[in-house]
């Protein structure tokens, strides 16, 4: 199912969207040849030196465009991210008539001026390269953010950073720690989740997805259904806070009861993932459209007390981490 904005596109654009959505991989013939360049970029970023990072980024992107036999692209690495209307800009791909296309990447967060994490930087880099691939390799008339686009980005990421596949975070970052992270990084956490779920679920049989690691621990499928329903619930709280001054935030039932009442075990994991992705897309659009003052609007929760929109974003980032970890463990047979 396409993202919600698909309905607003023209017919010609919808055709481009569908084509983009149908291509889920960009295969590199010899990805191992690029691994030293990836390692060099990781090291350069650690030095926190902009010029060193720019050079390493440029070499990696040139390596990628050469490997894919597509025209090169100019690369510019900048320091602190600028503030966009909805938050911070991570990267940008631009094409001007008569000039080579250009990728701009920001290596520091806007507020804290901290150097971004290597994987976040790589994701952004590959996201922008993905736009170049759309035009130069796939010959698409436009470069839309489709599910296929994100899958292509992921396919490149896991060819270039193979260690990341199956990596389990040693700890799930607590909500309080997420609260110290900038809005764009928390939004990036939310944005990555559908692709991460897809990667974990890909190739798994229904039996594997339905297997509970212990009688009282959810299966992978139940985790996905929970994420879908929690998305509706938590984004509903955000909408309520935006529409009503200081509302009470209630939960009808519990997550465990939803799983039983709504018969998660009978549901189709792929369809649940699809529904989650659509709702997540809407949630991200909602967050990105917020005016600065709206982030501090709040509601009252009987146990958690006052909760701002900003706090709910942290809660959602933690919630994703937590359940992605749970899903990995379920597939490994661990409760």
């Amino acid at each position, binding site marked *: 199912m396409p993202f919600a904005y698909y309905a607003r596109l023209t017919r010609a654009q919808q055709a481009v969207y569908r084509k983009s959505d149908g291509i889920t991989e960009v295969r590199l013939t010899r990805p191992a040849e690029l691994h030293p360049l990836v390692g060099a970029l990781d090291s350069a970023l650690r030095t926190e030196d902009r010029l060193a990072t720019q050079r390493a980024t440029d070499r990696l992107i040139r390596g990628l465009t050469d490997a894919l036999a597509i025209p090169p692209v100019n690369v510019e690495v900048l320091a602190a991210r600028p503030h966009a209307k909805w938050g911070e800009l991570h990267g940008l791909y631009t094409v001007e008539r008569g000039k080579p296309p250009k990728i701009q990447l920001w290596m520091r967060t806007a507020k804290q001026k901290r150097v971004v994490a290597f994987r976040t930087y790589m994701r952004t880099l590959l996201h922008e390269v993905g736009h170049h691939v759309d035009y130069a390799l796939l010959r698409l008339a436009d470069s839309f953010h489709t599910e296929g686009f994100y899958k292509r980005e992921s396919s490149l990421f896991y060819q270039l950073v193979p260690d990341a596949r199956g990596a389990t975070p040693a700890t799930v970052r607590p909500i309080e720690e997420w609260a110290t992270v900038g809005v764009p990084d928390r939004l990036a956490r939310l944005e990555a989740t559908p692709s991460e779920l897809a990667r974990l679920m890909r190739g798994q049989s229904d039996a594997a997805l339905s297997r509970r690691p212990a009688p009282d621990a959810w299966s992978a499928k139940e985790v996905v259904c929970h994420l879908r329903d929690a998305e509706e619930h938590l984004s509903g709280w955000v909408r309520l806070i935006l529409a009503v001054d200081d*509302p*009470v935030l209630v939960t*009808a*039932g519990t997550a465990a009861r939803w799983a039983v009442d*709504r*018969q998660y075990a*009978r549901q189709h994991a792929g369809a649940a993932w699809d529904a989650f992705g659509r709702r997540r897309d809407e949630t991200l659009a909602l967050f990105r459209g917020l005016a600065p003052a709206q982030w501090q609007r709040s509601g009252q929760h009987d146990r958690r007390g006052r909760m701002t929109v900003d706090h709910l974003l942290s809660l959602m980032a933690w919630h994703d981490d937590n359940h992605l970890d749970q899903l990995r463990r379920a597939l490994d047979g661990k409760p």
Partner: protein
Amino acid sequence: MATIEEYAKQPKDDRMKRLERTADELAAAIKGHGGTELAKRPDEKNWAAVEVVCHLRDVEEAFNGRFQTFLAVDDMKMLPSDVDRWAVDRQYLRCDASEAVDAFRKRRAENLEVLRKLAPEQWQRGGIHAQRGKMSFDDFLSLLCYHDDNHLDQMKRALAGKA
């Protein structure tokens, strides 16, 4: 079938009894029907019997949330729910109708318990409905009676292959 306005004129006890009967009526209506029959839509747009039961189950849960809200704060604006989207997202057609009736029965019992415990003055507490404006517990009791009638009728029609 009585309208909401007609139900509003009935004594509370009669309306409560109406709500108490619904789980049994649903169980009776689906008895003897196989899964295929229960999941068969009378046409493309109209729900199958199992979708109607799941809808009643989920609405009952949503009302539980609303009742909690009314008790915590009076006259708060309520946001509408997209019940058609629930049917798709929550995959009603893959659900077992009997299990859905069982879940509905539990949720209904909880809501009846909330209503039975209301003090007389609390019956006038409520919230602001997006289309209907101010609605009290008493108004919701009438609405639920009508809602039950309406969907029981819809379910019987679905099982008879009628939209």
